Structures are given as structure tokens and as C-alpha cells.
């Protein structure tokens, strides 16, 4: 197991390096001179050249990459082309919004999905089981931003329970206010995530309910409940864990739209602005952090799967 862990971590680092290279190359491959963003339309060639050297865009590509890489390793992500403010601190302050949003939404979605999926499977012959199944179908067909708009309309504007958007200037200094501002965004993301996650839970539950090992346990005198807990839990968790990692990563990356709906100062809105302005250092920094997050989530999910399913421990390769 430790050998697999080390191998997996090596792959993680390697993937990260490859991703960094890919990000760098991809951005440089896009048309649109970064220097243009700094200047007005009628800039003289000398002004353009000066801007480019100021920004470091006149150095050979390889040197640019090495500089950037060295900076990253020492946690200096460079400075924004537009605001000339350092990238890293801004990313950190934005993460203070995006990470809690993602984790809270994920936690809520997980709890809801377990309930919805299990009931939809176990009580598929009752009306509430069918209703929950229909709810999942609906939730995956609904655009997240629309759910956000409707929630704002209902709980902010109509009933004035939660703020309609934004985030307190002091950040988490007042946790109550911060949470109040996150309540609706978290609910929005959680509802949509529950749609797809609950379907996996439902499918896993159906598999367990129809399984022979469950019937065998009951044939030996186990009650349904005991059998489900002793055997069903672990067996059913396997397909669900594999999708959890993907869902969490998707939530993290999909925050862009939700932050737009609720005007949250998170990583997503920073990215949107950076892309529009061709602010390469910002874009690179954000993509790096996002990629790192996704790779780490994948790593943890992989390890979790191996812990739960001993059959995987014998297979040599990564899934």
C-alpha cells in the first residue's frame, strides 16, 4: 500500500508539472498580445515594446516559463498585468470564499443525496420514493444559475431572509455575516449536485438490495437492517466514492457561474475577469491552483477507493 501511495504521489507531481507546462503553452498559443491590455488603441510601436518588456513578454518563451516556474515553487505567482498587484495573495483571499462555498455545498449535497438516493431505491414502490426519483431527474436538467436566480427572488427579495449577493468586506471576521452571504449559493450548488449524486446513490442501493450476499445474510437469519449495515454499506460505497471525487472537482471548477449569479468575490469571478483582460499571470495562477485542487481531490478519492475495496489493492495499475 505504501508503495502505491508513493507511486501515486509521484504521478500527482508529474501531472502537475505537465499541467503547468500545458497551461503556459496554451495561454501563449492564444492570439492577443498581453501588452494590448495595458495600452490604449493608438499606441506607438515604442510604447508597445516598452509595455512588453515591462511585462516580460519580450523574453524567449523558455525563459519566461523557467521564470514563472521558479516563482511558483517559491510561492511567488508573479504580478497581474493589469493591476500589477501580486497574484498569490489575491488568489488566497478569493479562495477564502470559494473553498468554504465548495465544501459546504458538497457536504450538504452528500447528506441530501444519501437520503434521497437511498429512499428512492428502497421505497421505489411508494409515492415519495417515486417523487424523490423524479426530483433527481429534474435537478440534473436545471441550469444552476437559474436555481440561483429563483432562490434570490424568493429568499432575498421576497422574504428578506438572506442577502441577495456579495460578500462582507471584512471577510470571515464576522462569520455570521459571511455564512449568511454564502447560504443561498451553497443551497444552489447543493441542490444541483444532489440531482446527479443521488442517482449514483440510488443505483448503488439498488445493486445492494438485489444482491445475493444480502439475501444470503438474511437467509442466515440477519434482519434487513443489520445485513444492509454489515454488508451493504461498504459494497454500496464503492461506486459512490468514485463519483464523489469527480463531483467535488466539478463543483470547485463550476463555481464560476455561481459566483457570477451572487456577485461573490471568489476564484471564479477572478478568472472570468482575467480571461477577458488577457491577464496571463492571473490566469496562470488560477489555473494552477484549480489543477492542483482537482489533482489532489482525485488522489484522495483514489486512496479512499483502495481503502474501501480490497480487490483494488491487488491490481498493479492506476485505475
Amino acid at each position, binding site marked *: 500500500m505504501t508503495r502505491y501511495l508513493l507511486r501515486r504521489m509521484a504521478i500527482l507531481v508529474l501531472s502537475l508539472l505537465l499541467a503547468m507546462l500545458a497551461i503556459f503553452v496554451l495561454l501563449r498559443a492564444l492570439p492577443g498580445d498581453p501588452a494590448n491590455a495595458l495600452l490604449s488603441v493608438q499606441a506607438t510601436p515604442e510604447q508597445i515594446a516598452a509595455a512588453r518588456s515591462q511585462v516580460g513578454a519580450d523574453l524567449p518563451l523558455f525563459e519566461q516559463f523557467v521564470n514563472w516556474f521558479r516563482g511558483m515553487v517559491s510561492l511567488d505567482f508573479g504580478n497581474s498585468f493589469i493591476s500589477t498587484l501580486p497574484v498569490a495573495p489575491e488568489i488566497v483571499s478569493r479562495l477564502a470564499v470559494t473553498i468554504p462555498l465548495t465544501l459546504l455545498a458538497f457536504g450538504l449535497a452528500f447528506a441530501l443525496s444519501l437520503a434521497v438516493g437511498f429512499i428512492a431505491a428502497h421505497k421505489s414502490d411508494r409515492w415519495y420514493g417515486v417523487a424523490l426519483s423524479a426530483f433527481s431527474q429534474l435537478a440534473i436538467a436545471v441550469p444552476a444559475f437559474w436555481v440561483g436566480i429563483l432562490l434570490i427572488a424568493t429568499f432575498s427579495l421576497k422574504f428578506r431572509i438572506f442577502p441577495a449577493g456579495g460578500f462582507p468586506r471584512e471577510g470571515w471576521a464576522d462569520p455570521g455575516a459571511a455564512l449568511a452571504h454564502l447560504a443561498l449559493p451553497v443551497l444552489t450548488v447543493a441542490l444541483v449536485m444532489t440531482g446527479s449524486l443521488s442517482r449514483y446513490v440510488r443505483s448503488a442501493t439498488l445493486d445492494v438490495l438485489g444482491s445475493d*450476499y444480502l439475501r444470503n445474510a438474511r437467509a*442466515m*437469519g440477519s434482519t434487513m437492517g443489520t445485513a444492509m449495515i454489515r454488508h451493504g454499506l*461498504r459494497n454500496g460505497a464503492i461506486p459512490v466514492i468514485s463519483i464523489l471525487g469527480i463531483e467535488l472537482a466539478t463543483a470547485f471548477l463550476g463555481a464560476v457561474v455561481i459566483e457570477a449569479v451572487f456577485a461573490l468575490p471568489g476564484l471564479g469571478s477572478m478568472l472570468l475577469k482575467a480571461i477577458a483582460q488577457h491577464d496571463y499571470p492571473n490566469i496562470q495562477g488560477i489555473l494552477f491552483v484549480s489543477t492542483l485542487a482537482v489533482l489532489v481531490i482525485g488522489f484522495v478519492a483514489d486512496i479512499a477507493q483502495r481503502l474501501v475495496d480490497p*480487490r483494488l489493492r491487488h491490481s498493479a495499475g492506476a485505475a
Partner: protein
Amino acid sequence: MNLLEVSSLRVMSPDGVYRVRDVSFTVAPGERLGLIGESGSGKSLTAFAVIGLLPAGLQATGSVMLGGTEVVGAPEKSLVPMRGRLCSFIFQEPLTALDPLMRLGRQLAEPIARHQGHRGSALKRAVLDALDEVHLPEPERIANSRSYEISGGQRQRVAIAMALACRPKLLIADEPTTALDVTVQAEVLALLDHLVGDRDMAMIFVSHDLAVVSRMTDQALVMRSGEAVEKGSIPNLLASPQHPYTAEFAAGARRTEAAFAAALAQARPE
């Protein structure tokens, strides 16, 4: 008093088709009955209905009196104490009947603890003894293994050990050797025969193979398309079948009997 009395048992599937139609039979303590038929004849469903574990969506009507208690339509909590203690089950495919994630020793410990009341090291001892009873060499290694790490024959022996750990009065075996290799089949059948006989258990043996059933039981019920076609002692069914379907079946059995005898001869030098 009969251990099991089945009267007019019907099993209906969700699309309204009767998979088992008006089946009736009895099993006395220590008696062995074979349920013979092709796939789709309803024999396995009948077996599941006896223990109250029909797959989801299938409804049973009629009467199944197990040890004096009605099974059909009974609430789950009245069935639970009966299962294992009164009546136990062996499934056809041990690979799916055993939890793939759990070590076999732990799985075996569950019914043993429940029905024999052991704990701690006494429980561990009992698990190893149970594995010994089904003639598994290296019981400790098996107890630490998982179902996919051992062979099919070994798996089925573990399943038998689990079923017998409950010390049931009636054992239902649903095609227990069909999924095994022919040479291994003979050994497992011999084991089953010996253990059931030793404990004076009653047995319902479900199979599509008349030769196998004839080896394990004296009486048999022939089923076809959900209906009971003919019942009687095996020699009578073979020699003077009353129903043309039984005759077809007997003819098929003779063909495989020859092959079976050859396999038995191969299995004998141990």
C-alpha cells in the same frame, strides 16, 4: 408433524405472469425432496418462497407453513427468527452469495455467533471447526481470505459451512453444484450428503439435473412452467414416468448419468 407444508403456492411477477402455479408438497423431518425442472420452471422461486426471500416485485399467495408458522404474507419480524435456525439456504453462485469485501472468517462468524452464541476466542475456534467440518484444508488461511481468492469448490464449501452453522432443521440447496466444475461437483455433493445425513436434516434439493438429484434425494417433484407435473420416488419417476414430460427428463438424465459416472471415477483417487 411436517416440517414444511406448501399448499397451492403461487408466485406472480410484476407483469402479471404466474411463475409458480398451484404447487403443493410436504417435507417431514429428515426427509429429502428434489425439485427438478428446466430453467424457468419456477423451482428456484419455490425455494425462495419457502424461506420468504423472493426477489423484489414477486408476490406469493397460497400457504407455506414452516415449522407451524405461515410464511406467505408474514411480516419480516416473524420470519427473521426462523431463518437460519429452522431453515437455511445455499445459493447457486457462491461468488455472489458471499460478500466480496469481507474476509470469509468474519462472514462465517456472523451466523455462528447468532445461532451458537459463541464470543471471542471461542467464536474463532468455532469458525475454524466449521471450516474443518466441510473438509477445507488450511482453515486459517481460508478464514483470512476473501471469496475471490479461493476456488469455486472451496467457496461453496464455505457457503455450506455458513448454512450449517445455524444448525437448521431444513436445508434448501438451490443448484449448489451447477456453477462448479464437474469433478468438483461430485466431491461437494458427497460432502453435502454426508453432513445432511449426519445431522438428520431435512433437505430440499433444487436442480435441473435429474442424475444429481437422484444421487441426493429419494423423492422428487418435477416442475415445468411453474406447475408441479409429477411427484414420486426417483426410481419410479425414472422407470415408469406417468407424465410425458417426466419421460423426456428421464431420458436426458440417462445420457448425463454416463458422463457423471465417468467424472466420479476420475474424482475418486484422492
